[in-house]
């Protein structure tokens, strides 16, 4: 599985690591739904740590579409909303 971190590049993950990422993603979304800035920051940080820690960076000259895309390090809940609301996917 290939995961892209926006602004930081792509990583190749095995299925097990990708499943972990998915579980953390649920917590990221829960924090977002609860307007929990700190919880969002923590869960996203954890998710990105799994991607970069357990994944292997894809060389820049390889052309593959990603299976999943996540915002980069330090993205706040507010910024994530702004990025998504451009296309009207998350209201408010």
């Amino acid at each position, binding site marked *: 599985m290939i995961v892209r971190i*926006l602004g930081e590049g792509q990583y190749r993950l095995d299925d097990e690591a990708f499943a972990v990422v998915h579980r953390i993603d649920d917590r*990221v*979304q829960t924090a977002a739904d609860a307007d929990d800035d700190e919880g969002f920051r923590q869960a996203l940080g954890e998710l990105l740590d799994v991607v970069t820690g357990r994944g292997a960076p894809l060389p820049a000259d390889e052309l*593959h579409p990603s299976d999943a*895309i996540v915002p980069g390090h330090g993205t706040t809940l507010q910024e*994530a909303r702004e990025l998504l609301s*451009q*296309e009207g996917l998350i209201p408010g």
Partner: protein
Amino acid sequence: MGLMGRFTTIVKAKANKALDRAEDPRETLDYSYEKQLELLQKVRRGVADVATSKKRLELQSAKLEQSVEKLDGQARMALQQSREDLARVALERKKGVQLQLQSLDEQRAQLQAEQDKLVVAEQRLTAKVEAFRTRKETIKAQYTAAEAQAKIGEAFSGVSEEMADVGMAMERAESKVETMRARAGAIDELLESGALTDLTDGRDSIDRELEQLSSAGAVDAELDRLRAEIGAAEAPAGQIGDGDK
């Protein structure tokens, strides 16, 4: 849908918009390669734009540093002449300028971070575009239109996703630069009006007092210097006179 799902959907949608497909896939390849080169140019201009904004903030910081020194000097002068009230005003203004300086420093750091990100994004995109160019030439040379269609899929999606990613980074950097421009414009106005750089241009009574104080201080210093010179010239003459008696 989780956050990851939402981001995946939105970036893929942007990626689809980044590159249009033509009838003949081999034409699509050339056309999309042109688009990629255009985006690379834009990113390079973006990096230059951010650098320019950063430079402007640095120039403003330098001017504000000067006015801090000037206000400091005025406060010292006021105290020497026992005008604590004026010294206080000068120090209050100095504090205000220092706050501005601090905020400029933070903005400069933000722009630096954006610039660094764009530079890395440009390097990544350059590598992808070059990989795409190689793939494109191979496909064009080896396959018929129908076969090419099947072959370009992954290369096409891979590069357009990178383009969408870079495009988002560009938008972010541009909006930061816009915000900085507005703030920098406001500070420029303050600097031009003299409110920050020059408190001695007679804007108000306190400015005039500070100004008078420093000219009075300068006159006093000059008087002291003259007295010392005259004293030095007279003293030896007096001693000679004493000896004559």
